[in-house]
């Protein structure tokens, strides 16, 4: 192993650093540090001159560690690492010292102390640099096929979006035909087009697509592996087929809540859910003249706190449908808040009112009551605005219920090692910025499996999931920055702390050459170091942030206080 030769480059940043910190002193000091064989200052180390000087000195002085003392690594590190690489030095042999944001800019009135601090920071940086090691970034191939679980609108859209990029897609649907939940729906918000007219061509395009293989009446039985290389077995009536895919999209949808016990549902024949209402009239049949629609049935209550998101729109859609068929009809919508968010739903809401749909707000404390012996004959409700109790004669009561998570989500979530939220829907990596990804790479979610969403929203999510699922396949490999954890199998005692501590399920105990030890799946490791800190023996380490490197920084600082060093 060649002698360690550290080169230190201290930046004036114009007078941003130089105006406070005595840069030449820092350079002088750097020259006295162990293993430092070269040091210089630059007006701007990030300028062309600065960068080429780094490259020249790597060649001339045979430097094999580079320390730059300037601004923040969060913006400039890539620049300097690139320069090292261009000079043929592994970019992980570079260390950044921040003497601008963390020094000159915050100690502007104390040049002496600022200079002293800059020296110590450089000392710490050099101490770490000495222990830096060249790293190879982990790369693994991605098998060029994707699995889509669920053949509803979301699943079909995701499959097409992937296949149209030329990616091989396996689409697994539990039912005997494609279409999912909305097969029962007669018209779709907001276009009010007939569902079958929309669904059939979509399903045909999927079935006919050369890049898509459709598995009907099938279920995913097991999944193993990780991003780029999943092994999936799919069971189709008895037969099990093994598939190999690089990424997976979950589009298993959800189901309508059947509100047994609420508003005498299940007891009276003419008390039905929205879906049952649509199924009933899809095939024709007389539409009752007087209907009460009750919203938020089984939703936004202590037992089920969430809002069904689009069920208000569904209620409005069906109310309009009835009014348009029979302007004489009396349609009441009993609601709590009308969730007519955005442009279209609000328009819809206004139109319904113009058409004469009567919207009555009820209070969750005093909910409506369904009256009648063997059939629902009337609905009694406390009218909020009129401030009195009214009784509405009706021929039918339609209950608007939210979508609920499928019971077997749990099974799938274990298989895929992805979490479920409290409501039983799949839980994304980040509610805000990673809404259709999981912390486990290579698996994505869209549609009602994630949360109730209408068709346009589900389709958007499906495309988004397709985009994410296509990226590793298009790149052909997954690449991971070499700050990942690595376990020294010779000294690991397999206590399992690391396994518990890893947020990404990247660490497992495995039987290996040295018996049972921890093993890091680099493809899944995100380089947080949770597992490293949890390892009592120090067998687990993090590239670029090893105990050795951090300790040497601590020691370097301690030395300043205790050792006779200047």
């Amino acid at each position, binding site marked *: 192993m060649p002698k360690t030769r550290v080169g230190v480059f201290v930046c*004036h940043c*114009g*007078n*941003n650093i130089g105006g406070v910190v005595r840069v030449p002193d820092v350079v002088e000091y750097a020259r006295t540090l162990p293993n430092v064989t070269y040091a210089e200052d630059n*007006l*701007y180390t*990030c*300028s062309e001159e600065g960068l080429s000087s780094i490259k020249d000195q790597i060649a001339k002085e045979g430097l094999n560690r580079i320390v730059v003392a300037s601004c923040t690594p*969060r*913006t400039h590190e*890539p620049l300097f690492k690139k320069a090292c690489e261009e000079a043929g030095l592994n970019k992980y042999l570079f260390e950044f010292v921040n003497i601008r944001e963390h020094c000159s800019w915050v100690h502007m009135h104390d040049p002496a102390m600022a200079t002293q601090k800059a020296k110590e920071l450089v000392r710490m940086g050099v101490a770490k640099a000495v222990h830096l090691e060249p790293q190879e970034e982990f790369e693994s191939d991605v098998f060029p096929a994707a699995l889509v679980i669920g053949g509803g609108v979301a699943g079909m*859209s995701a499959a097409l*979006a992937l296949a*149209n*990029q*030329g990616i091989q897609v396996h689409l697994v649907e539990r039912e005997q035909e494609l279409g999912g939940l909305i097969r029962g729906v007669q018209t779709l918000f*907001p*276009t009010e*087009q007939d569902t079958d007219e*929309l669904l059939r061509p979509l399903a045909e395009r999927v079935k006919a697509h050369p890049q898509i293989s459709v598995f009907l009446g099938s279920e995913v039985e097991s999944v193993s592996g990780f991003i780029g290389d999943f092994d999936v077995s799919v069971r189709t009536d008895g037969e099990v087929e093994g598939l190999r895919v690089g990424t997976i999209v979950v589009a298993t949808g959800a189901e309508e809540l059947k509100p047994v016990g609420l508003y005498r549902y299940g007891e009276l024949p003419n008390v039905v859910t929205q879906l049952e209402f649509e199924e009933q009239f899809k095939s024709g049949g007389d539409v009752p003249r007087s209907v009460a629609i009750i919203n938020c049935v089984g939703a936004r209550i202590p037992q089920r*706190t*969430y*809002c069904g*998101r*689009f069920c208000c729109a569904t209620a409005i859609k069906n109310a309009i449908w009835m009014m348009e068929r029979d302007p004489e009809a009396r349609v009441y919508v009993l609601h709590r*808040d009308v*969730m*007519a*968010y*955005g*442009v*279209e739903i*609000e*328009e819809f809401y*206004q139109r319904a009112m113009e058409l004469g749909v009567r919207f009555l707000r009820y209070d969750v404390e005093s909910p409506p009551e369904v009256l009648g012996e063997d059939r629902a004959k009337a609905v009694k409700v406390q009218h*909020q*605005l009129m*401030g009195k109790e009214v009784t509405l004669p009706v021929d039918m009561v339609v209950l608007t219920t939210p979508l609920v998570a499928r019971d077997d989500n749990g099974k799938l979530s274990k298989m895929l090692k992805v979490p479920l*939220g409290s409501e039983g829907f799949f839980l994304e990596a*980040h*509610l*805000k*910025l*990673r*809404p*259709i990804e999981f912390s486990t790479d290579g698996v994505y979610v869209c549609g009602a499996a994630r*949360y109730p969403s209408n*068709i*346009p*929203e589900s*389709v*958007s*999510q499906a*495309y*988004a999931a397709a*985009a994410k699922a*296509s*990226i590793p396949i*298009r*790149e052909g490999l997954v690449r991971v920055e070499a700050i990942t954890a690595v376990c020294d199998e010779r000294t690991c005692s397999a206590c399992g702390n690391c396994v518990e501590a890893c947020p990404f399920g990247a660490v497992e105990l495995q039987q290996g050459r040295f018996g049972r030890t921890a093993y890091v799946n680099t493809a899944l490791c995100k380089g947080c170091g949770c597992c490293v800190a949890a390892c009592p023996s120090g067998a687990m380490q993090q590239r670029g942030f090893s105990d050795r490197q951090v300790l040497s920084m601590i020691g370097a600082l301690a030395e300043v206080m205790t050792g006779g060093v200047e």
Partner: protein
Amino acid sequence: METQSVLVIGGGIAGIQASIDLANMGFEVYLVEETPSIGGRMAQLDKTFPTNDCAMCILAPKMIECAGHERVHLLTYCDVVELDGTAGDFRVTVRRKPRYVDVEKCTGCGDCAQKCPRRVPDEFNVGLAKRKAAYLPFPQAVPRKMTIDAQSCLYLTKGRCRVCEETCQAGAIDFEQQEELVELEVGAIVLATGFDPFDPGSLKEYGYGGIDNVITGLEYERLICASGPTGGHLKRPSDGQVPRVIAFIQCVGSRDVNYQPYCSSVCCMHATKEAILANEHYPELKSFIFYTDMRAVGKQFQEYIIRAREEYGVGYIRSRPGKITENEETGNPVVWYDETIYSDAGDPERRVASMEVDLVVLCQALVPHSVHAETAEKLGLILDGSGFVSIGDRLFRPVDTSVPGIFACGFCQGPQDIPDSVIQASAAAARVAEILAKKSKELEHA
């Protein structure tokens, strides 16, 4: 897979996400942003619902990732002037406005801004603070390059000063800089021009502009933000006092035939978040939210409302105030509204009530971004009645505009929150990949 190019217009969270996804898919991306930095509206937010995590904490890494991506080419302080061609080969002319700063040399140190004598209202802090004519729009700006604003620079307007030039050690100031036109050839375009806050001044009854202590949601956002003009200390305009009672008024200009008929979708949650933040900063503080319908329809939103009610004592009043007046002595706004009271018999009755508070926050409507209409026109896009990009097939092509090869995501195609914008951004990327894949196939066959 041969590389093709894509133009993304708008550097907010939607544009950033679309650019990152497209670049990761292997496309060369040109991201055009009219202001000097990417980041958009999200950068102005303090925290975000329903997780309350700090907007900058989650946005900054995305901005850096985007700008640092080898296949993303940032064109900040630029706008689109002309477009022709069709899906697969558009030709776009982009105008680069002069920054009067050589970005190659500029280190973003800010010396020029410190020395610059000219102070003007700071857009990033919606006018609540001043910036210099030579400026960085906000501390985490990407790219970290200074800009000299020609409208206010003394030298450029009055022909004297040039202090920045003497100050800049890097010699980056360049008053010779001219506007340049950049010609791009791209296969597809993603529009993500976002929103502007609607100016509630036109709703005279709410007294915005007249009553000091009536402010807008975005102003409030900057006041409560740790990196805002008051360092996160909530000071009301009239006397810098910390308010004890705040009223948030919803649907200001939204769901209103005289202004915007549509629902802006995010304000209910936004107001709830602001009320929670106020209470977190000052536990004694009490907030009331005057609303029409509490439209909390997203994941974990209802739970957020419940927390606001139960943990932070936020009061929700279902009523649309008729007017806001000012108490002359105290400078306190007085909110006039209908309330429902219940008689002993439990019979409700509506009557006019008033509430004197220390501060009123108007949760104004959000409207399509001002220059968005021109841009749309240049691109030949059809807009809907409210000025949003209209979508041909709402159901199955939710990000396709009326022009093939041009896609729209985020607020410019309809009111939506950050998660939905991020989703649409990725969706747009997927559509681009589809049509360009088809295109390249056709080329092969040809």
